[in-house]
């Protein structure tokens, strides 16, 4: 489903974020990206929803070449990918309902359908009782649930998460991981960059370790492998 061939990313300031990465991720996998800060995890994640384009090499997603893709095809690509961030990226002046439904609204889906689908997404993340609240009135875990709801509302084939539990306490983090686990079970591929050692060790999923822009380790049912 995801394929990276000889991918190198050098930022304009000369920093080599990724060096000659070759990677293949199949449909339905759950993959952790681990490694020290600044090793290139976030860059790799950003390549997947084409927030970045590699300097060299090819990125293919479901047979689509993300490097040669034209600018106006990018929105179409992103509609098939759900993205979750460490800082949630919610709009403070929109309600939970509006934030979660945002991904549908920008597609021009009729209001009634937006409502129904948003409700069921919020149901799934356990927030159906707070649809009218604003993000500022929610806890961190609840905000991240809204973000997850927004990410899955389009039934994406791929869910990309960049340190989704980075701002959460361990207990709340596990609640989010339960959500991601269930989403993965329904067939969605999940790629998650993280520093959460306990989570990686207990989930026993594929672990790809990145160091200095290169793949240092790639194990099925792996462990975090770094001492903090």
């Amino acid at each position, binding site marked *: 489903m995801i394929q990276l061939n000889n991918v190198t990313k050098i930022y304009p300031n000369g920093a080599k974020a990724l060096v000659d990465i070759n990677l293949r991720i199949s449909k339905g996998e759950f993959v952790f990206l681990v490694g020290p800060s600044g090793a290139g995890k976030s860059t790799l994640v950003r390549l997947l929803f084409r927030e970045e384009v590699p300097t060299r090499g090819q990125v293919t997603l479901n047979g689509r070449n993300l490097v040669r893709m034209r600018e106006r095809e990018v929105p179409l690509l992103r509609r098939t990918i759900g993205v979750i961030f460490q800082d949630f990226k919610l709009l403070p002046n929109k309600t939970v309902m509006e934030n979660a439904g945002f991904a549908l609204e920008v597609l*021009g889906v009729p209001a009634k359908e937006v409502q129904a689908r948003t409700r069921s997404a919020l149901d799934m993340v356990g927030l159906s009782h707070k649809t009218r609240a604003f993000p500022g009135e929610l806890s961190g875990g609840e905000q991240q649930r809204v973000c997850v709801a927004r990410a899955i509302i389009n039934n994406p084939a791929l869910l990309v998460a960049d340190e989704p539990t980075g701002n959460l306490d361990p207990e709340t983090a596990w609640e989010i991981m339960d959500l991601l686990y269930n989403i993965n079970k329904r067939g969605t591929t999940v790629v998650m960059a993280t520093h959460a050692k306990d989570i990686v060790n207990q989930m026993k999923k594929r672990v790809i370790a990145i160091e200095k822009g290169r793949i240092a380790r790639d194990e099925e049912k792996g462990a975090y492998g770094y001492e903090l």
Partner: protein
Amino acid sequence: MRRKGLTGMSFSSAQYILRETLNSLKRNPWLSVASIVTVMVSLVILGFSAFFLANASNMANMFESQVEIAAFVQTNLSQSEVLALEDRIKSMPQVASVELVTKDQALLEFGQSLGGKKGDLLSDLGGTNPLPDKLTVKANDPQEVVGLAAELTKLPGLETVSYGQGVVDKLLPFTRWLRWLGAVVVGAFTVASLVLISINIKMNVFSRRREIQIMKLVGASNWFIRWPFLVEGLILGWVGGILAALIVGLGYRWLADYVQMTLAFLPMVQSSALFWQVLVGLILAGMAIGAVGSAFSLRKFLRV
């Protein structure tokens, strides 16, 4: 799959855009007021400089239209020769009009100006008219008068050619300068207005960059993101344009009346066609500036 045009619009999208525009206006009322005031001030300045340009050029035209060449015909020419000469001058490319004032007409006018009766002056002069026939020549472009006069001097059959040398030589550079000044003033204020307005729009877009980023990430098309800003810019520019048109319209009316009472010799343009053209132009300019300015300021933020 829903069919969409180039701009990614569907009915629910249009609803969304209108709602977003209104929300944005409600959310940042002071930014909206600031934008309207900026557009208004810029357009007021622009409107007044447009009227200044119109008046400057009108004044220049008026001065210049009074410039004419008097070419006096040699007295020994027959009437048919005079008419041939008139035709010849008429056929010159720089010439707008030629008017023949015969010596009889000239004598008559001269006599009237002395207050006498028709026959008196002629008999007083011993039965012969000493005045020459005169050709009054107007140039297409008053700025060419000097060159035209020089060419006329070369024509056989003309005695003297005069165009009020002293006055014209000073007047023509002055009117040219007046037009230039008008154009420079309008140009400078147009640029200043655009800069002011674009700063304001950039602030508005910047205050919503987070929203734009998120829209990009969930797969909104660029046009979908642009529309609310365009509509908002259009509305703000429209309101600013209307206010500016009111101020400029009332202000100019008042100024024109005032000038006419106190400085009657200064001709103010009172054409109502021009008046409405400028005012409608201001409103349209406001809308265009608002919409185009928004779209333009967005470009940087759309590259996520």
